[in-house]
């Protein structure tokens, strides 16, 4: 970093977003807004059966429809790809068959088996109705708890429904269990949910014959993943794929990877040598994009007579569905490894298994391994109840305190000194008024009202600096007129990077945020994109380093031109001036014009131009932490849960833009609330999805969520700006906090939920089970 770095002027300010004027007026440019001459439209025919053999497939009537350009089956398309592998998936690791369209059989409801390309989407869907297909139904594998033992195989090619089985025994755990005062066990279940970006998936691909170039406009979180996978699918060089990045209407993990449909569109565009657009409809998005959180963890904890945690044993099982988006991953291994969280947990042993089923594939959803916090925080409340301790006191007793840091976790994690779980726990407890609420709750119970309080404390490994995720680059150029263009491998889709990156660059370079324009997609250097709470630390550090490199040169040139000492200069808001003598100054535009157009006037040995490229390599992990506490009232007559208050105390290090941080937290929290109370991708026993519209899949509205109160503890990380990632955290802390609040409200009935969703039916069933017993 420059030793003359400007003081922070914009970092830490709730700078209004540079993105907003176009977005609030309807002038964003999302993928469906792209219209190219001669553009065709794709639609997919999808299986209505969970598992079946295709016995007849006749596309001739569809092909004959006026306006239809092509009807593709698996046999037509699948041979055209070299590899469908996502960059995070090791080439040697087993995976479902690499097909874009089902060929011979279908493996979940929504499995695409035919693709029509036509003059319009209307005609393409008409043609789908003319495709003649017959299926021979097979017994589907729907229940993931028994999938591993089933003789029916989701992917016969793999020989088993068991995708992963990672046992990690720990003899020290067994020893600790031997003489513990309390051994407490519970199996915690999450249920099938999905990301629901308001903009569904979509892509426009345009092949330029002879140039051999594929131009792509995509709704993606990762323009470079689109480029790399697209190149592998088409068997062409990465440089032959040009990815244009526009506005992206949310993703929450879903748009980090290419779907089979994206790949089919790329191939079709090449075969037809015509631009092809595919915009997923909401039914497709709910049934066939990706699902998540279909998992359970059996936790056994050993606790001594004073309530000290001694050890834990974990058994995690997760459903990968049929075609997991981004390839079969092992989030369960992360969930178990992270289970100890912000506590002295003692030795932990674990096992993590993943299975295939005839359902929509699993994919990353905001905090993909948040089962660690769900299971742990719900378990701690259970332990508190069993041993008769207050849940806040039990956490206070076991939480990592500043004196414990740095801390080596038995599972291999290492926590740096810059985490602050105890501070956030105390701040949140104070914000909610813990003791007052307990008094209010006791009084309410006497009146026959059921109030509950739930809390969740967690540490999140953000900005993971390993493998393809490890780095980001920034190419920064001050243009002739002094404006700053930054080219980055990110894929901002709501995270406000056009503003926050501009704030970082503005401070480091000495300009105003509005003098900085972020360019993503084509022309940027490789980066994994935006997701995994990584952009502030990794991309932000790259941008900062690039700006710093240019700033040094700006100061050197200005010093030469002004015949001043570089040490006497300061740069702010695009003006370079002599400290204490503001009249002696020149503008960034004057320096830039000299650097490009009058390079003979530059200092000796100074390279012409004003640009710098930097790449930042992140440490293995930068941990953020937070505590969520919410209160609720439960109506025992209807089973309805109403959230009363919701507080978050978080530490994401130095806040770049507090408004944006609070917004990220709020969005994640409400997704978590929705997950526990409302949202559920229900399948029946035959593998039929029952939630195919927003009337069945209940995304929370403004009427369901309380005002959110945010507190901030700021312990800077050791990364260049002192930031920590925060995009996912809300969705990590909220589910167990809400769950624990409902469980607490139900406590007077003597019933304890261990699964979600806690919708009115579930709550009434629990209450009924109490009166039955």
């Amino acid at each position, binding site marked *: 970093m420059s030793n003359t770095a400007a003081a922070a002027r914009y970092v830490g300010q709730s700078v209004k977003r540079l993105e907003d004027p176009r977005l*609030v007026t309807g002038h964003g440019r999302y993928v469906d807004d792209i219209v190219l001459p001669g553009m065709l439209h794709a639609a997919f025919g999808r299986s209505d059966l969970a598992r079946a053999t295709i016995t007849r497939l006749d596309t001739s009537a569809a092909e004959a429809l006026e306006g239809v350009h092509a009807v593709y089956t698996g046999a037509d398309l699948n041979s055209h790809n070299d590899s469908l592998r996502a960059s995070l998936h090791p080439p040697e690791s087993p995976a479902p068959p690499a097909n874009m369209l089902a060929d011979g059989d279908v493996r979940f409801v929504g499995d695409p088996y035919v693709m029509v390309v036509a003059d319009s989407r209307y005609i393409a869907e008409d043609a789908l109705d003319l495709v003649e297909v017959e299926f021979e139904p097979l017994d589907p594998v729907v229940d993931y708890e028994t999938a591993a033992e089933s003789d029916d195989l989701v992917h016969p090619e793999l020989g088993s429904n068991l995708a992963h089985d990672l046992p990690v025994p720990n003899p020290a755990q067994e020893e600790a269990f031997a003489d513990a005062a309390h051994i407490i066990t519970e199996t915690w279940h999450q249920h099938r949910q999905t990301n629901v970006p308001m903009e569904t998936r979509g892509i426009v691909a345009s092949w330029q014959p002879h140039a051999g170039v594929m131009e792509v406009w995509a709704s993606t979180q990762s323009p470079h993943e689109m480029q790399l996978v697209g190149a592998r699918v088409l068997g062409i060089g990465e440089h032959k794929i040009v990815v244009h990045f526009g506005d992206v209407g949310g993703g929450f993990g879903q748009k980090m990877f290419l779907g089979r449909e994206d790949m089919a569109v790329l191939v079709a565009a090449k075969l037809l040598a015509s631009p092809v657009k595919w915009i997923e409809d909401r039914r497709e998005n709910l049934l066939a994009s990706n699902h998540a959180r279909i998992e359970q963890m059996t936790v056994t904890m050993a606790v001594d007579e004073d309530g000290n945690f001694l050890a834990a044993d974990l058994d995690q099982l997760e459903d990968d569905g049929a075609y997991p988006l981004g390839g079969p991953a092992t989030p369960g291994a992360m969930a178990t490894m992270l289970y100890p969280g912000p506590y002295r947990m003692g030795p932990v042993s674990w096992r993590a298994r993943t299975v295939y089923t005839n359902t929509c594939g699993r994919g990353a959803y905001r905090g993909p391994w948040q089962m660690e916090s769900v299971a742990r925080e719900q378990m701690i409340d259970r332990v508190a109840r069993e041993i008769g301790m207050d849940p806040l006191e039990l956490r206070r007793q076991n939480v990592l305190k500043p004196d414990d840091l740095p801390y080596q976790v038995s599972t291999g994690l290492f926590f740096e000194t810059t985490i602050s779980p105890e501070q956030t726990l105390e701040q949140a407890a104070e914000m909610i008024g813990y003791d007052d609420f307990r008094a209010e709750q006791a009084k309410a119970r006497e009146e026959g009202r059921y109030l509950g309080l739930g809390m969740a404390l967690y540490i999140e490994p953000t900005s993971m600096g390993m493998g393809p995720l490890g780095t980001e680059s920034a190419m920064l150029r001050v243009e002739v007129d002094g404006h700053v263009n930054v080219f980055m491998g990110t894929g901002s889709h709501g995270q406000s990077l056009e503003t926050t990156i501009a704030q970082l660059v503005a401070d480091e370079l000495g300009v105003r945020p509005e003098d900085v324009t972020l360019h993503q997609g084509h022309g940027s250097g490789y980066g994994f994109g935006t997701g995994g709470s990584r952009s502030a630390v990794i991309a932000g550090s790259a941008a900062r380093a690039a700006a710093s490199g240019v700033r040094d040169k700006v100061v050197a040139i200005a010093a030469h031109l002004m015949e001043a000492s570089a040490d006497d200069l300061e740069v702010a808001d695009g003006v370079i001036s002599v400290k204490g003598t503001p009249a002696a100054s020149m503008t960034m535009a004057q320096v830039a014009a000299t650097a490009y157009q009058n390079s003979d006037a530059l200092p000796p040995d100074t390279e012409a131009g004003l640009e710098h490229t930097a790449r930042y390599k992140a440490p293995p992990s930068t941990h953020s932490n937070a505590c969520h506490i919410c209160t609720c009232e439960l109506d025992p007559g209807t089973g309805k849960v109403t959230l009363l208050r919701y507080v978050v105390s978080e530490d994401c290090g130095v806040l770049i833009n507090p408004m944006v941080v609070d917004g990220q937290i709020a969005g994640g929290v409400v997704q978590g609330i929705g997950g526990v109370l409302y949202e559920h991708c229900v399948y029946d026993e035959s593998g039929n999805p029952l939630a195919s519209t927003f009337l069945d899949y209940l*995304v929370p*509205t403004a*009427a369901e969520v309380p005002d959110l109160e945010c507190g901030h503890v700021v312990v800077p990380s050791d990364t260049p700006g002192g930031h920590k990632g925060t995009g996912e955290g809300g969705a990590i802390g909220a589910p167990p906090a809400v769950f624990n609040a409902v469980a607490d409200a139900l406590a007077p009935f003597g019933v304890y939920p261990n699964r979600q969703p806690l919708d009115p039916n579930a709550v009434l069933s629990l209450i009924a089970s109490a009166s039955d017993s």
Partner: protein
Amino acid sequence: MADQVPLSMTVNGRTRRGMGEPRLTLADFLREQALCTGVHLGCEHGVCGSCTVLMDGEAVRSCLLFAVQAEGADITTVEGLAPDDETLHPVQEAFRDCHGLQCGFCTPGFVVSVAAFLEANPDPSDDEIRHGIAGNLCRCTGYQGIVAATRQAAAVLKGEGQ
């Protein structure tokens, strides 16, 4: 394919003529023939509200109407709210001030819905705001900024300033 029929309506103060099958939705007409790509399609079954426009002053879901049903109507989309290139409508300004948007996809529908809601209820309570905008879905903001923006816009439109 059914025969195409002529279509004509006023969109943001200008007459827009086009052709379409009777099944052409108003949303598709506005996006593809009237060039109002701010009309967003989030569900195409009338729940998410992203496609909300004003038809003769009333907020409607343009995905649930056929273009022929809007024949001769006066349509205002999100593009038609701001008075000029440099100035935002008070609702738009409030969404920016209050971080009422992140990805921005649901925003046009919200902005139009809130403008219509405040026209009908210029002095809403917080509870009325939350229920008044419950016909639109947002997945990014958790509604915190949207509720605050609606509050601010109500005050500005009443002439109370910010």
